């Protein structure tokens, strides 16, 4: 059974409202911190892995270009 008669009584908690609700507010903050923190960290890690991948691919492309141009140079010399 509901203990409180109405919303204002529920919020007032017989004069203990400030204590009860501020305690629950701190609880909510801790929950939000623990949910958001890994989500933001995940975004950061994935971005850094993708950046590295792009960099690696870019370097790979450049080296293949130089290789082929070297090959062409070689052919040109022959």
């Amino acid at each position, binding site marked *: 059974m509901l203990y409180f008669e109405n919303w204002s009584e529920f919020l007032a908690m017989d004069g*203990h409202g400030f204590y009860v609700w501020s305690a629950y507010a701190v609880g909510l903050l801790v929950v939000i911190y623990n949910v958001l923190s890994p989500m933001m*960290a995940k975004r950061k*890690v*994935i971005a850094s892995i993708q950046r590295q991948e792009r960099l690696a691919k870019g370097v790979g492309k450049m080296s293949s270009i130089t290789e082929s141009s070297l090959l062409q140079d070689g052919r040109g010399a022959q």
Partner: protein
Amino acid sequence: MMKWTFFHKLGSPKWFYDISGKWLPWLQITSLLSLVVALIWGLAFTPPDYLQGNSYRIIFIHVPASFLAQAIYMMMATAAAVLLIWRIKLADMALKVMAPIGASFCILSLATGAIWGQPTWGTWWVWDARLTSMLILLFLYIGIIALRGAIQTSEVAAKACAILSLVGVVNIPIIKYSVNWWNTLHQGATLKLTEKPSMAPEMLWPLLLSILGFYLFFTLVMFLRLRVEILSREKKTRWVKALVGE
């Protein structure tokens, strides 16, 4: 032979990443459901305490947060022992990601305790054995986080954090028995494994459900953090590249 391959699998970050992914939706549903039900039950449906009135409703987050703050520390110490004995790197990752979660629940325990103390004892804080040992637990958590940040070589940092975690275990029985060993302002244990609870059942059930919800929530956010840590440390491996590249 079979035993060892199983053991090896347990320590494999990829294996954990795959299996934990399947657990996540269930952990989300069960933790949300149990916390919402337990806290609404505790806030609106239970009768007030005959001595403390409505301020006692703080118990539904204070006790689970305090339990969790101590339990997470014990899990970190276990991970530390596993790391030092078997050198399983997943144990070090677990040790690292549990520290900030444990610290946050320790802060929640101290904050809700202080808020509860004001209407009940007439003060936010006393240097009583229970409160002081809990504050030391927070310093241990902060110390472990800071230690890892201060050491450049990750292997040295892992070992140092593991040793500090193990040394700090001495504080856990002090927290537990502080209310029996010293004459404290803090009340005795609400729940004891060996005795029938002194709490009225209409208050006890939402408390037990809330404790369950806190543990489920901890498992959820611990898995989330551990999965990110695995991605970060294994970023050079083919499976992570394939996963992120999609």
